[in-house]
């Protein structure tokens, strides 16, 4: 547990980096400090490992004032990941990762064995051990940065905008990787970002900072999106917070229609009778393994001659699907919006169709969870 008690950082020239911070970071959780630049989020983070000394107030780790600890020793017990990784250009990947264990006086062989373990943990190929940082992509460098921070198995991990310098695709994969790691390791992670989406994805708790170094709101991501405390937080979160909040509701609860899903061997007249029966404008065609093939419209079914298999008709693309077991309402809504049929295709973890849901039904489901 990390506790800020009235922590402040005011520079001699009067600049206020952090005005007055009272905050408790829970052990084993990911806490995200988010805010625009100049809001004091990075300064607050750097107070934890004494890279910044507060001018007022106290920072405690598990109840003990960190001023009682030697800065170098304190820092060796806290993982530190920075933007663009900050890897040492003269050291190989393996030796970069072994930095802190070596500082702690481990034997080289043991430190390197540990580094190799971590490379595997963060998804780096063993062949990259002997490479130098400049030979790696930005994403790989940041994986090394995370491995380096974890090398001495510190209980706390500080991450200062670690993924902001990589492209969005790589960033998403690094975020996934961090979520996976955290499920395995349960570190006390403090993560700084200016990206609210990243904060919502990663954080168990989110602290929103406002310019002038004040804490505006400290809440779970779900509550933050549902109930921003004031106009600043609301505008910082962004206008589509309602849609984003749907990320927290599983798609599992949706009722999917199975009766409008047909095999591509089925005859036209079979689909026609079902579809015409209740005025459903679209039917989904799947193959024998229940992998989606595409949509066929009621009008097409009317025109098609009897006896023809559905698979031989011209099918509209089904867009992308959502996983009924793991995806959220947001993913389902997105799939429905992008589908030419206005319907989302729900699949199981092997991509087999479970059923389809229309935008109307989704709307009703969203309405019920938003209440």
């Amino acid at each position, binding site marked *: 547990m990390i506790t800020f008690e009235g922590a402040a950082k005011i520079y001699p020239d009067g600049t206020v980096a952090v005005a007055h911070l009272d905050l408790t970071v829970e052990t084993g959780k990911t806490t995200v400090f988010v805010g625009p630049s100049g809001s004091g989020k990075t300064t607050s983070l750097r107070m934890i490992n004494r890279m910044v000394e507060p001018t007022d107030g106290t920072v405690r780790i598990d109840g003990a004032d960190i001023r009682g600890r030697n800065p*170098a020793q304190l*820092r060796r017990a806290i993982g*530190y990941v920075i933007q663009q990784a*900050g890897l040492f250009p003269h*050291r190989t990947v393996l030796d970069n990762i072994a930095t802190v264990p070596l500082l702690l006086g481990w034997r080289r062989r043991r430190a390197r064995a540990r580094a190799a373990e971590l490379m595997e943990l963060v998804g780096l190929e063993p062949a990259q051990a002997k490479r*130098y940082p*400049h*030979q790696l992509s930005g994403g790989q460098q940041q994986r090394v940065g995370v491995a380096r921070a974890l090398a001495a198995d510190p209980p706390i991990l500080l991450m200062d905008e670690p993924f902001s310098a990589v492209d969005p695709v790589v960033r998403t994969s690094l975020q996934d990787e961090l979520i996976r790691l955290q499920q395995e390791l349960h570190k006390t992670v403090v993560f700084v970002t200016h990206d609210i989406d990243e904060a919502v994805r990663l954080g168990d708790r989110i602290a929103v900072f406002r310019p002038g170094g004040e804490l505006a709101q400290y809440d779970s991501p779900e509550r933050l999106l549902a109930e921003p405390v004031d106009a600043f937080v609301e505008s910082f979160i962004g206008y589509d917070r309602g849609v984003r909040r749907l990320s927290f509701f599983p798609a599992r609860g949706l009722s999917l229609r199975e009766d409008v899903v047909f095999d591509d061997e089925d005859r036209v007249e079979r689909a026609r009778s079902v579809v015409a029966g209740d005025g459903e404008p679209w039917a989904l065609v799947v193959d024998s393994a229940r992998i989606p093939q595409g949509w066929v419209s009621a009008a097409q079914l009317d025109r098609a001659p009897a006896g023809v298999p559905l698979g031989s008709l011209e099918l509209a693309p089904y867009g992308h699907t959502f996983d009924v077991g793991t995806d959220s309402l947001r993913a389902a809504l997105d799939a429905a919006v992008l589908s030419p049929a206005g319907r989302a295709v729900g699949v199981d973890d092997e991509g087999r169709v479970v059923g389809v849901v229309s935008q109307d039904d989704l709307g009703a489901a969203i309405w019920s969870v938003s209440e």
Partner: protein
Amino acid sequence: MDILNELVAWFSDPAQWTGPAGIPARMGEHVYYSLTGLLISAVIAVPIGLFTGHTGMGGFLTASLANFARALPTIGVLFLIVLAAGIGLAPVIAALVALAVPPILVNTHEGVRGVEPRLKDAALGMGMRGGEVLFKLELPVATPLILIGMRTAAVQVVATATIAAYVGVGGLGRYIVDGQARQDLTMMLGGSVLVVALAVVTTLLFAGLRRLLVAPGLRAEAAAAR
């Protein structure tokens, strides 16, 4: 092409290659003076440069001193010291040191100071202490620049060590000074060729040192940046 033939003849004369006035002896003296001057300069300049670069203290002073020293005419320094201290090896070495310290000092200072702030931040954040930051990060990263400073200094020292002859302590400068006195162009040219050859060898040696001392990650990085 007369002069070329004469030069070949000068170098082929067996008498040229033996005795205390022979090429090997003169070359030995020259290398000895150069090496001594360079080593003393490095021992003075590298620690000061590391200190000022690491702490950021005295950066302006370092640059000013170095610029001032650069502007000094070496031969003037030599005669000044000879006048003050008398004829001998010491004034020669002192003049060479005055010449070699500035490039080494400036490059060491700049090399250390130029280490990216985020690398220093990472080093401190991981729990390195000042000395560890200096020796595990700043010095290795600054090594290429320090070596360039030393190479510049070394080539200048090799070229300038010829002044030793003016105060009668030998070296390859003897051929140039004596040749001038005797109006012997071939001898002067022979001495010059030897000095140039030694400077080239010095440059090659530093290329080798670079391979030996600079981490492969930095060598390739520099190559990629070019």
